[in-house]
Structure formats: structure tokens, C-alpha cells
């Protein structure tokens, strides 16, 4: 019954998709090895920009920025996914409770508001209530705008799961908690993973809002990178980007290996 699962041309379009996604990255990787200081003129193969990333005058700054970005992205994506999962259960499974339409509007609010408005409004608000801008305010802002990005895939997934799975579990005297963790949650997992991934890359990539709510001296990778391209992008940015790619590829490989081992063991 392969027929209904496979459509002619879908593989081709997937390959088009991956080509478009990865072709610019080839440029990034290639120019990280550029011997000259320009990203538009090729000056021969060189490792100098990788050395620059780790030992150059800005190595400490970019290192700290990368660490901030990654920790904030992981924390914000996790918090947003938890909040969004709870919200999906309420919205999809909760029946017609009071304030449902308003809740729907509220969840999607971070999507509606133009980023620059969120940025200025947040900074004014944080200042007004006396919250000191820094790591904490960046994290709060990121959790907030990540919620709809986590919510939409999770709820889309939950919509497709008929309630009889849980009902069957409950009929067999599983507690609500067990019915949730053992039956519903595994079924929801692909949605939750998608949501977390989206939230993660959204957080990792945010510049506009972060730039406003970060305090003095606080940097994330996007703010450090945006700052440094004022005088034109140098290959050291390309080297950092390539390292980020390598790191993500390593994470993927690792998770794949863990997955495979997990499936082998009985």
C-alpha cells in the first residue's frame, strides 16, 4: 500500500527544499576558510578565522555571547513548550470554558505584535516596573514570544488525537496522570518536539527584541553579530556560524545514536 503514502514529485520538492536551505550554508562554510578579510573576495584557503574565533581580540565576547544564546534558547524553548503544552490541553481538550476566545487571542498575541513594538514596549515596561535589564529580562521576553511558536504545532497535533485513547486508559482505571504520561504524551510527542525545535530556533535567532531588553554589556550571538557587521561582515562571523552548524550537527548525530541504542536495548 505504498501508493497512498507516496506522491510523485514530493521527493523532488523535498530535495529542492533542502538545496535551497543548504546552498547558502555552503557559502558560509567556504568563506569561513577565506584567507582575506573580505567575504566578497576570495584570498586562498586559511584557518586564520578559526584561530581568530578562539584566540582573537573578540574571542571572549563571542564565546560569552554564544553561551548566553544557547542557554537562553534552551531555557526559553523548554519553558515555552511546557506552558504551550498546558495551554493546548486546555484549548483542545478543555471544552468551552470561560475566556476561551480571549485565551486564543492571547496565545497568538506574540505573533501579532510587530517585533519592534514588542521590543520598545517591553523595555518601557521593564523600566517602569523597575526590573533591571539583563539575562533575566531577555529570558522572560524570549519565553513570551516563543509560546505561540511552540503552541501551534502542539495543538495541531493534539487536534488529530481522538480522545478515546485516554478514555480507554481511564476505563482501565489508569489515573488521570498515568493516562496522560503513558498514553497521551507519547502520542503528542512529535508535536511537542516540533514545538520545542521551533521555539529554540526562534529564540536563538532573535535580534530586535533582545537588542532592546538586554542590559549594558549583555550580548547574545545575534546582537554580537549584528553589531560586528556594521563595518561589513568579516570571515570570523562565517567561522562562528560554521562552528554553530557543526555543533548542531553534533547534537543531531548524538541524539540519533542515543535513539538507536535506546531502540536496540530490550
Amino acid at each position: 500500500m505504498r501508493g497512498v503514502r507516496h506522491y510523485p514529485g514530493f521527493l523532488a520538492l523535498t530535495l529542492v527544499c533542502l538545496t535551497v536551505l543548504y546552498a547558502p550554508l555552503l557559502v558560509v562554510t567556504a568563506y569561513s576558510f577565506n584567507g582575506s578579510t573580505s567575504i566578497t573576495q576570495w584570498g586562498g584557503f586559511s584557518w586564520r578565522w578559526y584561530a581568530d574565533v578562539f584566540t582573537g581580540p573578540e574571542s571572549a565576547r563571542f564565546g560569552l555571547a554564544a553561551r548566553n544564546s544557547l542557554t537562553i534558547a534552551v531555557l526559553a524553548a523548554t519553558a515555552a513548550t511546557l506552558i504551550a503544552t498546558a495551554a493546548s490541553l486546555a484549548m483542545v481538550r478543555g471544552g468551552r470554558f470561560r475566556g476561551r476566545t480571549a485565551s486564543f487571542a492571547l496565545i497568538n498575541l506574540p505573533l501579532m505584535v510587530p517585533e519592534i513594538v514588542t521590543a520598545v514596549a517591553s523595555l518601557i515596561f521593564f523600566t517602569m516596573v523597575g526590573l533591571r535589564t539583563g539575562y533575566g529580562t531577555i529570558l522572560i521576553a524570549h519565553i513570551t514570544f516563543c509560546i505561540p511558536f511552540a503552541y501551534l504545532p502542539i495543538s495541531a497535533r493534539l487536534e488529530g488525537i481522538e480522545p478515546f485513547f485516554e478514555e480507554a486508559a481511564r476505563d482501565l482505571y489508569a489515573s488521570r496522570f498515568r493516562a496522560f504520561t503513558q498514553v497521551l504524551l507519547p502520542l503528542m510527542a512529535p508535536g511537542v518536539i516540533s514545538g520545542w525545535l521551533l521555539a529554540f530556533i526562534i529564540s536563538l535567532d532573535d535580534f530586535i527584541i533582545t537588542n532592546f531588553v538586554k542590559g549594558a554589556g549583555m550580548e547574545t550571538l545575534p546582537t554580537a553579530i549584528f553589531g560586528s557587521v556594521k563595518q561589513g561582515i568579516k570571515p570570523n562571523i562565517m567561522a562562528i556560524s560554521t562552528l554553530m552548524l557543526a555543533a548542531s550537527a553534533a547534537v543531531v548525530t548524538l541524539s540519533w545514536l542515543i535513539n538507536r541504542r535506546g531502540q536496540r536495548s530490550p
Partner: protein
Amino acid sequence: MAGAPGAGGGPKDAGWGPLALPLMLPTWAVIGIFLALPVLLMAVYSFLTREFRGGVEWQFSLAAYDQFFVTRGLFGDEPPSLEWTYILIFWRSLWQAALATGLCLLIGFPTAWFIATRSPRSRTVWLFLVTIPYWVNLLIRTVSLKFLIRDNGPLNEFLMGIGLTSGPLPLVNTNLAVQLGLFYSYLPFMVLPIYAAVERYNFALSEAAADLYAGRWRILWEITLPVVRPGIVAGCLLVFIPSLGAFLAPDLLGGAKNFMIGSLIDEQFKGSQGNWPFGAAVSVILMTLVMLALLIYARAQGRGRA
């Protein structure tokens, strides 16, 4: 099946009803305090008096909305008439976001489908393959894309090399480049929600239809699409709305010759104009439009079911 995910109410309660309010509480707290309040403040700002060079004076004024909808000529002494400038900017941005969403759907749906029909173990790897590029900063990705498509760039050299075009295809500073940039910026936002929906799809439905001699494209259109629609709608929202306010791709790839909604608002807060009430008013108008469209859609879906 609700159209906008989670927009319809449901019979699929399974005993969650009493928990709905506590489960919503974190969302209300976080978004309510840290976004709704600041945005409300912004909405208030749109009705205040502009302080020259940024900031507001706490004095009620409709000047921002007047500026948006009414023109009195360059020197302000002609009879008032409808101001088309900003409506045109809105229209241009809406159109561009719609095209980008269409492009993402066209490529993103087959990709999501393809991934969802892999073996469970390799699905995760494919998903990661789609998201890995997004570990690289958007600015860097956009600049690299520009490098590829410029007149003397690799794409044009390739096209001329195989004899498809005789001269360089002008792509940089065109709308097509902006579309490509938006597509590249937001593709995973289309793929991941659709994947989550298709992955759950019960292929027995398609098989049953196939047994009745329905063609496979008809099955896709009439059986599958309605079932996975929440994922598609979620994906379209996640691409369309951010595209509306995007300004990196329009600026870098489109040449920034014309204001988009995003750059127009940005200019009011960070540009030399420093007109916060007007920037707030443009945002309020944009948010109202999007929110209205969403609510009308959600209502229509709810009624359709009942």
C-alpha cells in the same frame, strides 16, 4: 475539526474540562503580564501627543491616526483627503507575505509529507535536517543567499554555464529575491506544524478511498487535506504573520527602496522621524487587522462544526 488549531471548542473533552483554567494560567500570567500589558501601553501611546524626536507627552491626541488616514498635502493646507501612502504600504506588505506563504506551502507541504512518511527513527533526523540551517543567524543566511543570487554569483554563472540564460538574471533588488528571502527565513515554520499533523494521519483512510478506486490526487485533496488542515493553517499563520513585519529580507534582498510595514514602524521608533505615537498607531492597526481576520476565521470554523 477546527481550522485554526485550538480555535474551535470541542466535544473531545476526555475529562479535561475542569482543568482548563489552571492549565491556561501560566499562559495568562506570562503573556498577560509581559506582553499584553506592554502592548496595551503601546496602544495607549498611539493616542498620545508626539514628543519631538521620540517619546510621548501624556496628552490625548488623534494625530497619529489622522496622519495615517488623512492627508492635507505636503504643507498641510490643502483640503483633507484620504491618505493612500500608508494603505499602499500595507497592501504591498500583505501581498508579499501572502506570496511568501504560498511559496512556503508549495515546497513545505511535500517536504513535511515526505518526512512524515519516513521510518519513525529517521523522521527525527529529517526534522533536524530542516532546522539545522537555522542555527546560523538570519542575517548571515540572508547575506549568503544574496551572494548566491547576485549578477556575477554562482547561480547566474551556473545558469549561463549550462546555456539556460545568455546574460545574468537580475535577481538582487527584485521582489522575487524578497520572496526567496522570506521563504528561506520561515520555511521550517511551515514544515514542522504540517509534519506534526501528517505524522498523526491515519493512512487507512486513504487506503479505503483507494480501494474505492479514487485517484491518489483526489484522495489527497478530498480525504487527507481536510484532516491535516490544522497543521496547514498553523504553518500558514506562522509564516504569514512574521512575514508581514519582516524587514531584513526586504531591506537586504529588495534594496529597501520602498517602506514595508516592518521598516515603516522601525523608522518611527529608531529612525530619524522618532514619531512614537504614529509607530504605535501603525502597529495597532496592523494588530487589529490580523486579530480580526483570525477571530472571524475561528468563529466561522466554530459555527461550521455546530
